[in-house]
């Protein structure tokens, strides 16, 4: 009974539906690109370069004659993979840190983690991301690390905030009276109850990850050729924007729609999972 009603309420939230649909389109395109793309993105066809969108090439061709639609599909794969793994890294390290900080409640561990957090926040994320990829070589993996690092403090802070408010709740005191140690309580009681918040934060960081990856590959430090990436398509298109605007408009739209989709889904999720609003509705 509990499961079906969740889906029904999910469909009622307009943001979630629109956002979910948009994001799914790009995820589908990314997955489809593993098995099929209208044209092979690695073969160049310089004779047919800079074609406007037409029947044979739905989104036209770029300055090397490659099919832009196929590039968008494969580019989706890069962007989504980099952003997803960066968020994964952020969550994987940030959440345990946040839980540990909350569990130690003001003792030195909490202070230490929070000071560390403030320090990472103090670093200019974009400059450091560029530094990491420039220093250790530009590649998708380095982009993931560069973006992931700055996700860790975000999740640590969000988790700690939510967990701290839970620690004073009575059902936690009851669990302590039942003899469970802080680690078990964190996993059994705290984590499930902050999961909603983390999912919502996850979608937002995911969309920021896509923007960050686009930024990095725009300055040439993201995924390396021949793997296409939206950011680099933008960078290549920059000089031709005056006579071939579709080269810049289409990747730009792809980034905007994906990020918009994810953010709307995040908003929809927040309304769905936030008990206050859910009770008001049901």
């Amino acid at each position, binding site marked *: 009974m509990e499961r079906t009603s969740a889906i029904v309420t999910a469909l009622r939230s307009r943001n979630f539906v629109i956002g979910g649909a948009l994001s799914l389109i790009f995820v589908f395109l990314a997955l489809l690109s593993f098995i099929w793309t209208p044209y092979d993105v690695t073969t160049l066809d310089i004779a047919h370069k800079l074609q406007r969108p037409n029947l044979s090439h739905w989104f036209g061709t770029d300055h090397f004659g490659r099919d832009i639609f196929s590039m968008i599909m494969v580019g989706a794969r890069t962007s989504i993979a980099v952003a997803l793994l960066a968020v994964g890294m952020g969550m994987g390290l940030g959440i345990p840190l946040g839980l540990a900080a909350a569990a130690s409640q003001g003792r030195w561990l909490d202070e230490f983690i929070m*000071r560390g957090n*403030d*320090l990472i*926040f*103090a*670093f*200019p*994320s*974009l*400059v*450091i991301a*560029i*530094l990491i990829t*420039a*220093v250790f070589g530009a590649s998708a993996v380095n982009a993931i690390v560069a973006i992931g690092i700055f996700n860790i403090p975000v999740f640590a802070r969000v988790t700690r905030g939510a967990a701290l408010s839970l620690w004073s709740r009575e059902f936690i005191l009851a669990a302590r009276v039942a003899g469970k140690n802080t680690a078990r309580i964190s996993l059994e009681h705290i984590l499930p109850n902050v999961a909603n918040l983390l999912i919502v934060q996850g979608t937002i960081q995911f*969309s920021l990850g896509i*923007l960050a990856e*686009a*930024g990095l590959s*725009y*300055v040439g430090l993201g995924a390396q050729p021949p793997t296409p990436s939206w950011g680099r398509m*933008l960078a290549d298109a*920059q000089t031709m*924007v*005056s006579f071939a*605007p579709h080269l*810049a408009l289409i990747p*730009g739209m792809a*980034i*905007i*729609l994906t*990020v*918009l989709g994810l*953010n*709307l889904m995040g*908003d929809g999720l927040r309304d769905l999972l936030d008990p206050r609003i859910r009770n008001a509705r049901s």
Partner: protein
Amino acid sequence: MLRYTLKRALSLIISLAVASLVIFFVIEVAPGDPASYMLGINAQPDTIAALRTELGLDVSKTQRYLNWVGGMLHGDFGTSYTYRTPISEMVADRMWVSLPLAAFALVLSTVIAFPAGIYAASRRGKAGDVVLMGATQLGVAIPNFWFAMMMVLIFAINLRWFSAGGFPGWDEGFWLGIKSLTLPAISLALPQAAILARVMRSSLLDMLGEDFMRSARAKGLSRRQALWRHALRNALIPVLTIIGLQFSFLLAGGIIIEQVFFLPGLGRLVFQSISQRDLIVVESVVMLLVFSVIVVNFAVDLAYAAVDPRLRSRS
């Protein structure tokens, strides 16, 4: 209040010390050597060695770290390898571009976000709210460098209302300087305004649900009066944090925008120094950015105490 400031000042110093250590030893790992970069393809090994000694690159790392930190304490960041000029001078010139740009963008962002956030909160659920929130969703989704490209195409190349970039320098006239910073500031301000508007709205909505709002209404204040006189000031507190965060982001966040508009700002200096392996400049500028972020956070904390009396008395 004094103890609160003292405690914060102490943690500020510790963070700075740790930051300088992290910055120096992370950046030192960078492969590539500025001397060989400067001497180019045909340089002989001995010429490069000569230049390295001249630049003081052959000294041990810890020694260089100590010189660097020692110098920094009295404002001398050392001399740039490639430009051969004192870094503090270079940074000062660039600061005159990045600081006004960040301030301009922050003002734009606040001027747009505050009315939008308040309007949306007061018309929660109605058309105005939905449209504005849709616009902020879009604002957050647009990559600011793409937006900059489009603006250059329309306003600089086609309509030619603005120069396509470059910075004439403040001595050419204040308004000319502002004019050349307008497009970059707008493209920097767009995502920030969107975020700030959303925070403003949600913070206001939280406050509207509080008990003291009900007391205000019971006293006879209209819905709008209650919002302006009571909810707004309380809603400012979380908004202040975001503004503090945004300013520190804008200072360094302009690195790509400065590229697109070829502004001689801190961001571009860092970018060029990274590719030229002018490590001492990179370290100094990153250190400066970290220092400004920590100082801004410190200021935001003090502003908190000003806005929220509960903090003032407890410390």
